[in-house]
């Protein structure tokens, strides 16, 4: 429920600040997990606090406090003022509140079909039954199921008139089976350990659909025990959406963040090969590559109406027909760089200042069916489900591993492969994009754990993609 934040701000905002704002965040989380058919854990938490922010002579300062009484928030504003004044002589940019803090007014709640939630006995019972159902063989040595439901309520008020209230309902699920035969151990999950994150209600935990997913994960874990290792080769690589989402995240999302381009992340998460002058010109990938920042996709993990400084969310092309046309940069980064950006200044909680973030970053669907994509390949590998990811601090040299693969020979899928990996360099890899799957292959996934920022922040993002084919990729297996 929203509280009267404008009145609280009016009672606590300091004299002498050119601008002041309050952001309140309240989050409630429920989770449960099962292992080997038995209850493992359950957790219920609540968290609520305030970020008091001021702008003094063009320098922002903030103070985060969970204490909502007037005296405490006044004191927080006072400390934010002290810090902003101290930093003034060292300011990286003289910000203008009219440019960097919109005076927006909006209310928004993410959609969900079932609003009444899921009782803990149903929640835990489903996790246990799925975990039990995955034990289809003595060779299955572990099964696990994890479910989470989060509600994040954000409210913003500012002295220039912003009044915003937003509620996100985010759900997460993970199913995995581990099989062993002799010294061979293989893990298979339903789309990865953390890719199934959506804005949804209890309908996300559909027992019938999950049972089919659990059955498939267990069967494929067993199948992988006797599969051949992925061969070392340079060939065509077909990637399923549950791998594409992380390929997009690491080799498009992070390199195109404007704060990385401006050097803010160099000491921690890293820099980027993208230069400021590349925006509007750089041939990032093949002409089939169309990447959008789209916080309006219903059900995708990071959909919202406004970001954490109140900038209105809307869909924008980041890469259009292979050309980098815009960066993932917030109003603050846009003011510093003079480059076009998006509404993506987000914080992971009330205790952190917002920074440039990806939100939903999607690859738009193309025209090819999956069957046509496979039919056009003489020799290649089709890979599903991310299990390993690594990329350098300039976002060039990457290596990814997947859980499950199929060999493609003469236009046909022939056999299952285990331990598939591939490596490459971001821009040349995206230039080798030669087929983009149609809407029938397009799936929505996401990541609940994108880390960035100093102090560190972990946030959820959404990524949707069709199946894609890349030409001439270095592919290898477990022993290469």
């Amino acid at each position: 429920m929203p509280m009267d934040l404008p009145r609280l701000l009016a009672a606590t905002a300091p004299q002498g600040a050119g601008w002041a704002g309050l952001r309140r965040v309240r989050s409630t989380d429920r989770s449960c997990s099962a292992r080997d058919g038995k209850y493992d854990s359950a957790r219920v938490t609540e968290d609520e606090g305030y970020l008091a922010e001021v702008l003094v002579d063009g320098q922002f300062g903030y103070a985060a406090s969970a204490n909502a009484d007037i005296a405490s928030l006044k004191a927080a504003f006072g400390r934010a003022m002290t810090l902003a004044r101290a930093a003034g002589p060292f300011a990286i940019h003289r910000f203008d509140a009219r440019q960097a803090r919109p005076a927006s007014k909006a209310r928004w709640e993410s959609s969900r079909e079932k609003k009444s939630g899921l009782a803990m006995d149903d929640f835990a019972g489903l996790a246990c039954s799925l975990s039990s159902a995955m034990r289809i063989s003595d060779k299955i040595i572990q099964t696990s199921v994890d479910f989470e439901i989060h509600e994040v309520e954000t409210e913003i008020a500012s002295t220039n008139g912003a009044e915003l209230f937003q509620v996100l309902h985010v759900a997460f699920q993970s199913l995995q089976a581990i099989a062993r035969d002799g010294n061979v151990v293989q893990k298979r999950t339903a789309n990865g350990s953390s890719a199934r994150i959506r804005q949804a209600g209890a309908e996300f935990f559909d027992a019938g659909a999950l049972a089919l997913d659990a059955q498939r994960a267990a069967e494929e874990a067993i199948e992988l025990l006797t599969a051949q290792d992925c061969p070392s080769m340079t060939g065509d690589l077909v990637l399923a959406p549950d791998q594409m989402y992380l390929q997009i995240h690491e080799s498009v999302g992070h390199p195109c963040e404007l704060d990385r381009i401006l050097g803010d992340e160099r000491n921690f998460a890293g820099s980027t090969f993208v230069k400021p002058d590349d925006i509007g010109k750089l041939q990032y990938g093949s002409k089939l590559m169309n990447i959008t920042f789209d916080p309006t996709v219903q059900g995708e993990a990071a959909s919202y109406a406004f970001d954490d400084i109140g900038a209105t969310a809307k869909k924008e092309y980041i890469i259009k027909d292979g050309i980098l046309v815009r960066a993932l940069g917030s109003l603050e980064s846009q003011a510093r760089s003079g480059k076009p950006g998006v509404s993506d200044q987000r914080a992971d909680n009330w205790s952190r200042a917002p920074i440039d973030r990806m939100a939903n970053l999607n690859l738009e669907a193309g025209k090819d069916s999956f069957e046509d994509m496979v039919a056009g390949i003489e020799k290649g590998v089709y890979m599903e489900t991310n299990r390993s990811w690594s990329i350098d601090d300039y976002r060039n040299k990457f290596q990814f591993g997947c859980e499950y693969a199929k060999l493609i020979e003469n236009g046909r899928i022939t056999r299952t492969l285990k331990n598939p990996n591939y490596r490459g360099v971001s821009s040349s890899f995206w230039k080798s994009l030669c087929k983009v799957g149609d809407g029938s292959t397009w799936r929505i996934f996401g990541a609940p754990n994108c880390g960035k920022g100093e102090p560190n922040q972990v946030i959820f993002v959404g990524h949707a993609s069709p199946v894609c084919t890349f030409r001439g990729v270095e592919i290898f297996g477990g022993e290469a």
Partner: protein
Amino acid sequence: MSNNNDLERRFDDARDVLMGELASGEELSMEFSGELSTFMRFNGCKVRQIGEVDVAYVEFRLYKEGKSIAAGFNATGDAGEDSARAARALSRAREECALLPDDPYRSAPTSTSTSSEVFAGRLPAQERLPQEVLGPAAGTDFTGIHSQGPIVRGAANSAGARHWFATESFITDWSVWLPNGKAVKSCYAGREWDGAEHARRLAAAKARLEPLSRPEVKLKPGDYRAYITPDALYETIAFFSWNGLGERDIREGESAYIALREGRKGFSPLFNLTQDFSLGIEPRFNEAGDVAPEKLALIEGGKLASTIVSNRSAKQYGVPTNAAPESEDLRSPAFGAGKLAEKDALKALGTGVYISNFHYLNWSDVETARVTGMTRFSCFWVENGELVAPISNMRFDESLYDLYGSKLEDLTVERSLIPETGSYVLRSLGGALLPGILAKGLRFTL
């Protein structure tokens, strides 16, 4: 340390409500984590963001009639509000717990131990922070973060245990950059801020920039002799926690060290890994109030000496606990020292690569303990014991059984205490005591 007193009051208030409201047949363990931190993020020797964070979290586990549930809330510092939050959280935990299946491996708290460690510090005044940290770096492309303030951890349980750990500390985690994109990375951490020491470290870093300005050497994929510094090795420490030496991971097929447990693989006889709380950098107690042994040998002479065992795993597998947290993460790790003097490291390397930092490591194949990652910051090509030029960033893909096994030539006599700099949700405690290592080969792949 008045802020510590305020945080300790919040801990005790929460403990009083949670323990005081327990009904017959209920047991409870709780942990408390908090801080009052000032953060100053800087880029190009300018302030990017500056602020203060006052935050405290209470997490507890309720045990009742064969069931258990975890719950949590944040403590505000307002005694009345916090009391209400604690009571509400306990009430909700009770309601939800009643709906759960039985917990087959519940391990209700039994420890009655108590402890208190408080380390006061001397930190710069908030209003002087920008000048104090950035002033000595004027004229350089100085980028990173300064964090300071008290950090506290507490644990208590219904059997009577109470533990408190408070430290007032700072970390300036920074890098100095050249226009060519090369940088020297460093970190100044401690409890007693010394502006002169900060300036001395900056001056030393500036002197180390010159070799980085030379044209870089582009290496081809292949096996290279390598000297790897303690800072770089620190990035591999997580791989003894994640899919690591936890008893549960090994039993359930998640660990990279199943082959080590079964005697099919081993490390070099030179390789020793100990969990060593005598380092004094993080508390010995876990969330249930149990106190871990001061030292626990995990790998001795390249062989598995012990795994990391929580109370829950102890119950599940019938093995002794070593008071690990439920995550069975490695805490306060220390690698054993070797015989190589640090000053002789480049000479011993001869021709090869000097690696100061790794970046973005991940398992590339858990089953064979193979890890991939990148070189980062000041890494050099070395010929005949002399730094020649920086190398272009290279990807490696190497089994830890080889890096700390057949390819491990020696470790340095000197060991460095590398602080943990992470600040997800809260500023981290801990770190690791590590030597540098000389490796016969490190496999670069891209």
